[in-house]
């Protein structure tokens, strides 16, 4: 039996494959008759079908629409003829991970390159057939034209000849002015299957002879199986097998219900755990205490915290942010077949390449013997960057060699036993000069770093280069201060901590944007004007751009977003009695700039949301609007629910005690303004719209109550 310690060691080793790189495998031309496949990403069938490989996991963010659009644009393809195939890890696809809102920027070049290479070869094939220079030909709508002679030929009729053309290494890419597809609103490719129940999510995957499994896991963190009695379980009709696995006891049955009944009948003795004394309330106190002294410095403007000494007036506030589960409606699950030294996995995963490694380690077989299929995800939000459920499914399938096993997590399993977003405390300090100007600033964050892949060493916890990422939203504050110091302190906690929508930044941006609002109120400044000043609007000594932890922050783009909010958001409108506006903004690390003005009333009503977004070059404006709406509604959930721990157990287990935004809580009016900040590439939007919405709402509510909202949930 593997101990939890070994499991963690394996998880750490597996993280090497999790690096989100942009390396793609470009295959050679096949030269075969039949489809024309100039590279790994696109294939053109003789009937004219354009088959595009999608190398990112679709979990609602729209990659299965936006990525094909990019390739089809360069290919000059008829988008109606595009069909999708989900890429599987292997030699051609060595880095398929999806996370961090990086899909658009990461795939921008590979998709264009793949489409342009195919287009170049198709045009060359037509030119050769007509004995004309390729430069005299044009392509559009999956057809090559020769304007001078009026001849034309469809892509489908060129596949055999195109396959014989040399593969261009540096094909000419189209200029933005030549785009006909990018920038137009295209509806979701998978929508028809979704509204008819035909879409296959992980939990819907079925194979002939497939069995169903659930696992009894320890109620207390870090506890393990001491012994178990399965006599009653084995009497349940449909139960096939009971097996101990790393994290608990698996019950395998003919169907989900039999497995669940079998699990309920299990009697498991769990070992004592040091985590049994863990309570999130005490942890919050420890976090706050950790901010009493500055932590590891991760950014210093001017003279740093020394600047605080000369302040005429000081302000100080502590912000709290809770632990949170992901609560995607589809609980995690995975289907695995282990047979004859091979393994096949069907999973709603965000990290498919890692699964090859995980299964190879569990089974002791080469990674190339592990085939991974990426299924549709019923809400990802970072949960499926964890591979704990796939690891478990491989272990269970190993017990059932030759039989496919579908591991189901119940909602309660999902809420209690997954990884969480870390709780954090933020101590904010401001020093005002005699005229009331913000002269000095401090942001001290304390939280638990990610530990599901590899928990940081003590040395790393004190290394500025290592901790900076955990202070995302702190180090990359777009504001310029005369003197400022940002610090981070790691505080251990026993539960799994890992990716969650917008990762480390929502808590940081909540604290920062709320505290800036506190300063605005205290100094009688308009919250938009104060921010514009802090972005160097009238101060030539403030650099227009800066690089923090490798992220380029462009202040003119942040200013334009706020200026647009001022212009289009009707901020001076007369509000009904009892209503107030809350303002917040953020520069997300991928180069996406967002600002909100939110009209609220007490106790927690959101009447209207105005959002301005600059997410770089826009692929699909319709998709941008969807992500704005979804992100801001997610953020409202962020202000309602939390996960607490008592006696080392996660308390919340289902939507009845972990509430998320409900239908009637949706803002009746949402307006989205997309601005062009001059970027020549697309940036991410799945996460950036979440962060500033939380403080915008909190700022509005605080203006109504007169007392500040400094902890979540509200």
């Amino acid at each position, binding site marked *: 039996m593997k101990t939890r310690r070994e499991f963690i060691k394996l998880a750490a080793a597996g993280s090497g494959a999790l690096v989100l790189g942009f390396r793609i495998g470009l295959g050679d031309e096949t030269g075969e008759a039949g489809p024309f496949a100039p590279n790994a990403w696109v294939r053109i069938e003789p009937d004219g079908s354009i088959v595009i490989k999608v190398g990112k996991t679709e979990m*609602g963010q729209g990659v299965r629409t936006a990525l094909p659009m990019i390739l089809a644009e360069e290919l000059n393809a008829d988008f109606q003829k595009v069909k999708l195939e989900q890429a599987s890890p292997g030699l051609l696809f060595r880095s398929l991970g999806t996370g961090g809102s990086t899909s658009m920027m990461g795939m921008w070049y590979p998709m264009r390159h793949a489409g342009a290479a195919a287009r170049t070869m198709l045009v060359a094939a037509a030119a050769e057939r007509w004995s004309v220079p390729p430069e005299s030909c044009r392509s559009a709508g999956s057809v090559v034209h020769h304007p001078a002679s009026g001849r034309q030929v469809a892509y489908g009729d060129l596949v055999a000849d195109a396959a014989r053309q040399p593969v261009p290494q540096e094909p000419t890419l189209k200029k933005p002015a030549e785009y006909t597809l990018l920038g137009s609103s295209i509806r*979701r490719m998978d929508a028809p299957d*979704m*509204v008819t*129940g035909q879409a296959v999510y992980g939990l819907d995957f079925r194979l002939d002879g497939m069995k169903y499994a659930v696992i009894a896991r320890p109620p207390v963190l870090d506890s393990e199986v001491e012994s178990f009695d399965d006599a009653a379980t084995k009497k349940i009709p449909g139960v096939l097998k009971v097996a101990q696995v790393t994290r608990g006891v698996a019950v395998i049955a003919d*169907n989900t219900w039999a497995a669940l009944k079998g699990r309920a009948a299990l009697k498991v003795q769990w070992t004592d755990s040091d985590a049994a004394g863990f309570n999130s309330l005490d942890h919050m106190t420890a976090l706050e205490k950790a901010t009493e002294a500055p932590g590891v410095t991760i950014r210093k403007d001017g003279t740093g915290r020394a600047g605080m000494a000369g302040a005429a007036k000081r302000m100080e506030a502590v912000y709290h942010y809770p632990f949170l589960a992901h609560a995607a*409606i589809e609980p995690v699950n995975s289907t695995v077949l282990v047979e004859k030294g091979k393994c096949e996995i069907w999973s709603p995963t965000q990290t498919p390449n890692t699964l090859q490694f995980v299964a190879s380690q569990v089974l002791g077989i080469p990674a190339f013997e592990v085939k991974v299929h990426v299924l549709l995800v*019923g*809400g990802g939000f970072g949960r499926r960057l964890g591979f704990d459920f796939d690891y478990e499914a491989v272990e269970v399938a190993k017990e059932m060699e030759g039989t496919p096993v579908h591991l189901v997590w119940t909602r309660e399993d999902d809420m209690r036993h997954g990884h969480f977003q870390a709780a954090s405390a933020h101590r904010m300090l401001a020093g005002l000069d005699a005229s009331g100007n913000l002269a000095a600033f401090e942001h001290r964050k304390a939280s638990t770093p990610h530990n599901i892949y590899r928990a940081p060493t003590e040395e790393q916890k004190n290394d500025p280069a290592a901790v900076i990422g955990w202070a995302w939203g702190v180090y990359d504050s777009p504001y310029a201060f005369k003197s400022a110091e940002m610090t981070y302190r790691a505080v251990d906690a026993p539960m799994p901590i890992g990716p969650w929508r917008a990762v480390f930044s929502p808590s940081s941006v909540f604290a920062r944007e709320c505290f800036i609002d506190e300063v605005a109120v205290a100094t009688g400044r308009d919250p938009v004007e104060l921010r514009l000043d802090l972005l160097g609007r009238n101060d030539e000594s403030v650099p227009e751009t800066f690089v923090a932890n490798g992220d380029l922050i462009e202040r003119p783009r942040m200013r334009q977003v706020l200026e647009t909010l001022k212009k289009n958001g009707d901020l001076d409108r007369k509000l009904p009695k009892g209503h107030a506006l809350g303002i917040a903004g953020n520069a997300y690390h991928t180069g996406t700039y967002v600002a909100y003005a939110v009209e609220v009333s007490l106790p927690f009503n959101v009447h209207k949301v105005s959002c301005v977004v600059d997410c770089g070059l826009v692929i699909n404006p319709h998709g941008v609007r969807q992500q704005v709406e979804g992100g801001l509604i997610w953020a409202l959930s962020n202000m309602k629910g939390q996960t607490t721990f008592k006696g080392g157990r996660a308390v919340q287990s289902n939507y009845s005690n972990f509430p998320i935004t409900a239908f009637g809580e949706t803002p009746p009016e*949402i307006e989205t303004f997309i601005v062009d900040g001059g970027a020549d590439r697309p940036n991410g939007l799945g996460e950036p719209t979440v962060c500033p919405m939380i403080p915008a709402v909190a700022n509005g509510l605080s203006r109504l109550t007169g007392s500040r909202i400094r902890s979540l949930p509200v």
Partner: protein
Amino acid sequence: MSRITLNVNGKSHTLDIAGDMPLLWVLRDILGLTGTKYGCGEGSCGACTVLADGEPVQSCRITVAEAAGNSFTTIEGLAASGLTRCQKAWLEEDVSQCGYCQPGMILESHALLRRKPKPTDQDIDQALAGHLCRCGTYPRIRKAIQIAAGAGSKS
């Protein structure tokens, strides 16, 4: 085990089955109708909604023994004779993000429009109150229902 007969999407099924199995798992695991989704198992998310003689019910909250003798429509059966106006409106408004909760939303909305052909936003909020969407597609669902309502009484 009990012998139970129920009608799903116009087809009669006789099953030898544990009578306490929730209809949800019967649909998904026994009949292979995976368009009906599992989300919470306690009736708080609405993803498992199906129609029982036209009325929305949460299939995780009724056992197959209770379901015996009744007729159910799942999302797979809704479009048996072409897309309904709700499904069409869902596509027009492009409601879905991850799409997982949408079958339950669509069936509930379908029943709402049967009951109330011209619902107000308040009617919609009330009818859909038991349905959760983690992606935040609620504003588009509201619009889609209004589009469908405008399309007239033909379903």
